[in-house]
């Protein structure tokens, strides 16, 4: 009789425990905001003087429970249109060696100062729209470029449509980079050449408009169940529709 009581007690303890293989107790008081299905886009209109370099990734958002080892968020049958008042371009699905899967248009070449619209439609998801104004090209006063005391210095001219710069300085051996947040005013650039490992011979400067600058600098988290603000620059979905203008400067 005593043994039975002990066995019952042990069983009671075990079934009331959270054993390591159990998921454990779950949270309560969930204020459930319903999952809103939608496209998740990352589009970059690239003002580098070459047609066909602009692209879009088109995926969808998903609920946590959808995640499996075979899960694939990419949407391959979307209708993607970029337009201005007087014209429109269809971006089509393709696979290339750089981007893998993207939507692009080989003839599309964006122009500085022009506002482009975006419409993405696909079955069973709400239509996504967005706009972006192509930023002006970064401008450097060539006379300001100086290499002194293992530093390279130059002046970036005021550019009201640029909110962030990525600057790369190349040598034959290596490359160094610097990111600068901009409010549109002229800026002085100073970069340490000590880690370049050679004589600088080329500068690339990328100027981002506000959508892409905000998206790229938005923080994220790897901690589950933590709040972070999501940057969304489109309507009716998730993600970013932005633009970048590029210049390169060869150094003597």
């Amino acid at each position, binding site marked *: 009789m005593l043994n039975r009581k002990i066995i019952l007690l042990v069983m009671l303890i075990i079934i009331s425990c959270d054993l390591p293989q159990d998921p454990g107790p779950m949270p309560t008081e969930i204020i459930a905001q319903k999952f809103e299905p939608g496209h998740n886009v990352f589009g970059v209109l690239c003002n580098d003087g070459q047609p066909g370099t602009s692209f879009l990734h088109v995926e969808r958002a998903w609920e946590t429970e959808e995640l499996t080892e075979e899960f694939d968020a990419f949407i391959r049958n979307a209708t993607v249109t970029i337009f201005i008042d007087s014209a429109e371009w269809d971006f089509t699905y393709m696979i290339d060696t750089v981007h893998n899967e993207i939507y692009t248009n080989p003839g599309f070449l964006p122009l500085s100062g022009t506002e482009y619209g975006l419409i993405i439609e696909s079955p069973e998801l709400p239509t996504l729209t967005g706009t972006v104004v192509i930023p002006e090209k970064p401008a450097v006063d060539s006379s300001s470029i100086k290499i002194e005391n293992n530093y390279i210095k130059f002046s970036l001219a005021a550019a009201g449509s640029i909110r962030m710069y990525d600057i790369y300085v190349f040598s034959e051996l290596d490359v160094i980079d610097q990111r600068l947040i901009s409010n549109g005013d002229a800026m002085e650039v100073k970069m340490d050449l000590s880690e370049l490992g050679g004589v600088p011979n080329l500068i690339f400067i990328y100027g981002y408009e506000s959508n892409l600058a905000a998206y790229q600098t938005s923080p994220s988290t790897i901690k589950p169940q933590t709040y972070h*603000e999501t940057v969304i620059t489109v309507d009716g979905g998730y993600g970013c529709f932005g633009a970048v203008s590029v210049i390169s400067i060869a150094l003597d």
Partner: protein
Amino acid sequence: MRIWLVIGLSLMGLLRGANLSGYVADRETGETIIGVNVIIDGSNYGASTDRNGFFTVTGISVGEYTLRFSHIAYQLVSQKVNVGRSDKFLGTVLLDQAAIQGESITVTANRGKIIKRDMDISGFEVDPVVLREVPTLGRDVFRLVQYSPSTTISDPMSPLYYVRGSDPGENLVQLDGMTIYNPQHMLSLQAIFNPYAIKSIEMLVGGYDAEFGGRNSSILYISSREGHQDEVKGEFKPSTSGFKGAIEFPVSGGGTAMLSGRVLTSLVNRVLMNMPNYMGDFNGAWQKTIGKTKVRVSTFYARDYMDYDFHRFSIYFTQPYMKDYSFGFLSDATNLALGVKTRSILIPSLVAETHCYFSRFSVDNKNFFSFSAYDSINNVDVVLKYTTRIINRISDFTTKANLTYFTVFNQTLKLGVENNQYNFYNDTGIFSNQSSITDLSSALLSFYLQDKIALGALLLKFGIRQARFQSASKWRSEPRASFALKLGNTTIKGAWGRYHQYIATMNTQDVEISQYLDYYYPLIDKVPLTSLHYILSMEGKFIRQLNYSLSAYFKELPVLYRFDYNSSSASIFAYNAGLEQGSGEAYGAEFLVRGNWKRLSGWTSYSWSRSTRNYPSIQAGKSFLFDGDQTHNLKAVLLFKLTDDITASTTIKITSGFPRTWETGNFNHYTYDPLANSVGVFPEPYTPDKNNVRYPARVAWDIGWKKKLRGGFGYYLAEYIGSDEAYFTLSIQNLLFLRRNPYMYVYIPEYGHYGFDIAYFPMVSAGYSIKF
């Protein structure tokens, strides 16, 4: 000027009776004693000694009296005093220690009885002997503080605590009056104060005097020991992870000194995982009385260093994916303080204090996570890369002085001035943002006046603090008032006060692996953090040795700040470009019972609380639960004196879970490589609602055992090296290990969410210490 002062003081002296003042100290050690009742024999009239061991009995008529000095741990002393028309300074009254059985019972249980902190409406005072008697507290001040009914936590891996719904950055911690910034070790999650060096721990959780400024939520005031006047005394505690030690001794010329230190490292991490780590803290104090002036020099230094990369653990695994990740943190923190304090009895009814100190904290804290894998389905490289690096430094050079005057109508007036010269340095980079640097200096100048009036059973306090942050900004007022009305064995207390804080802290709980410290920013050209306290409480006795207190509070928080990470990209970390102003409120009720019953002593409490926040950019300004909101808190610290040599103890915490943000969906976040004109992706949760779930309730039960050794190796070792006593301690933490306390859920495909706990098994630790 001086003549008018003397005339004024003399006139006021004629209006009232005489004042009797003095210090009370331990005859053997010379240490001043806090909480000694000084009563005029045959009456209930008297005072108790403050944290300096100083008392003033005010308004006594001419005559001959007997003063009784009583303290539970000391023999009663009576002293005859002839009182004339003028004030009298009695010097230092010495008490002999009582032969008590088990200090844990007699001292800690009666602490509430022996200390009459007349007006500190929301105080939580515990004798540090509790740290020594309850092994499960790990001899740590912060673990002890978490057993206050007013505290909650939000991250079990962090030592930061929340007091009555306010942010951890609104808690002020002072060691001997010096502000210590981030007084916690990361490695052990403990406070950086050696328990042996602590003389008293006093925590004020609201409604505090105008003397305290610059923080809106709580004051943790720690007094360190003064040193032994005749002998060399101390404690030494070696362990496999390091050592702790303290020594106090007389110094030639009549002074006393105390030195203490701890150095610890985790050998498991260092040897098995090649992860360098160490932490240390050192206290020093020297004190001397010159005439009627006490001079005290205090110094403090602490250092933490950790270099954890769990990638180094991969040497034990053969799986290739273990080679392609890096996860960990590198933290280097230093804390130091040095100060000189004087306390002079100018005349028996006029006390002057000056204090000058320098306190500095700096940290370089890096969290990183990176993982790369090939996604064969989508034919892309999946790259997860996440880094935060925050370099933060605050320097505080403070000079302050005050005058306390015991004057007519049993009034105590305190007038003070405080000047803080700050320097803030910050260099923060989070995620892909490159860091930006801020280096700012600022000054906070404050004046305060506090008046305490005793009218029979009614005690009133009024105070005002005027402060100006930066010379160009305007003066701001912080009025405060409180009362205490004694009705038989019951005391009713109430308080109201306005509090301003000119330093904000950055909440990185959502972006760092664990936020274990605060990062400080000055609120230059901003409205200061503002908090209004409304408190009502009742205190009394159930039976002779069982006290209770019931408190209700409401805190209005009209000005709060958070760092809006998205508002202006990387530049937000530069200074205040990303500071978003919001508001909030907190309210609750706390019930505390403490005392002793037969061989059982300790305290137990229940509290109910609520705290919310509003910020324009979060949920369109809708109110949401504050991170530190734990609705229900049931806590207990109990000691049971089994024999004269053995104390068993237990600590229990049953609390509501933490508010957390449960994702409503997920999507891939893209990183752009402009050189290749290509992208990388990583999955990211979508979290439109902050703190939309509450984690399950948390239950923690630990037990401890402390035994004074009377034989065996430990006893003979202590005897051999000439020490007085040796102790063995044992603690078992997480007794209810089969009951999960999740602190994080991870979604595992085709399994579901799995809740991770910190401790899956009981943690048993044994210790040995010797006292000399």
